[in-house]
């Protein structure tokens, strides 16, 4: 699919492979609808951050933009802090 959309190269594949983790954590690791929703949200987030955030980052002194590569990981961190099981994942209950 990636190859069909944007052509095949190794770096692109690695970037996609890494962006999968935020998507799947956002949706919840054990949930199929979550994976779909997470993928869509992360994809939209990437495009929106290219459009809106790159200009902001260059204003505060970070050059070159490319925030679409880092925003998914920021979302991943925030999710892990506040809702580690994702939007639709089941919460694990642990015993000693």
């Amino acid at each position, binding site marked *: 699919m990636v190859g069909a959309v944007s052509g095949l190269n190794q770096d692109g594949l690695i970037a996609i492979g*890494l962006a999968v*983790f*935020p998507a799947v*954590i956002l949706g919840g*690791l054990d949930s199929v609808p979550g994976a779909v929703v997470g993928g869509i949200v992360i994809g939209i987030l990437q495009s929106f951050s290219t459009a809106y955030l790159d200009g902001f*980052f260059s204003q505060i*002194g*970070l*050059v*070159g*933009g*490319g925030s679409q*590569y*880092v925003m998914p*990981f*920021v979302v*991943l*961190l925030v999710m*892990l*802090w506040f809702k*580690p099981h994702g939007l639709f994942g089941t919460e694990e209950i*642990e*015993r*000693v």
Partner: protein
Amino acid sequence: MRNPWAQTGNYRTSYEQDTAIFANYRETVSVVLLLVALCILPMFLERSQVLVLNFILIYAIAVLGLNITTGYAGLISVGQAAFMGVGAYTVALSAPSLPFWLTIPLGGLTAAMIGFIVGIPSLRVKHLYLALATLAFQEIFVWVVGRSPALAQGAAIPVEMRNFLGLEITFRNHNYFWYYIILFVLVVMVMAWRNLLRGKYGRALIAVRDNDRAADAMGMDPGRTKLMAFALGAFYGGVAGGLLAYMQRAVVVEEFTLGRSVVLLAMAIVGGLGTVVGSILGPAFIEFLRIYVERLSEWMKSSTLIQSITPAGVDVASALLPLSFGLVIVLFLVFEPRGLYNWWRLLRSYFRNWPFRY
């Protein structure tokens, strides 16, 4: 003890003996001999060979840190290279105004602070989730450094040190000088490692690794222990990164990417998690593997016989390095999960019990 040199095993009758740094007389002697050997080793080596040794020792420091987070506390971290990067960039920014014996600990402390923050998710999540949190930190670090004008957008920042106490450091003696500095730092760090982990804190780390809820019930604070493990591991990484910056005379972001983090984790696994010997054997094994495989692929590129066997358009030679790395990691995980340290242990016990089998 009556005849310490004739001791055949470890008879532990008290807690002090159990936590001793050197279990017996023979270990003390062998460590001293090893240190003397390492001190005179550069006299027989060329400049490029000392460089390889330097890299091995620097990675050994970083892997020691990883062995606290991953080996002792069981928190899988794929961000160790980023912690090295934090240390290296701290050194690069403070080197013009401070001497190196201040910048390197400063790099370690900065990395420890960042490690503390990165460790915060470990209060709630573990295993895969935690690995993903460190992965996120690794990616964010590379991105921030690569975009900051203050850090040359990840391009080389020179780190110069021309003389030390009147000794002029030139192109010729640079590697030798830093070899001794790195060796000294490594010895200090190993002593600190043993000293820290043999007592209360080390046991708390092991208890939290094995079952953090049980550790909580026994009166330890798993959250604080995990954060301490992260901060300590990051401190070791930061110190290693600072040394790397001085030794390479420059800092580049390519040194501190996800790939390097994975290689550091591989070094820790190949060496044997949670052991000092393993944290030195692991980097040595991986570095020598890299050097010899690179040599082999050079030879394969030049040899016409190999060229005629392999299909046209398939570059076997440059695929050899990633292939051998992956193969070594998988083989170690399958056949020797305890790593090279286990071989070392078996070898030592063979010689100790000789001529008896056990």
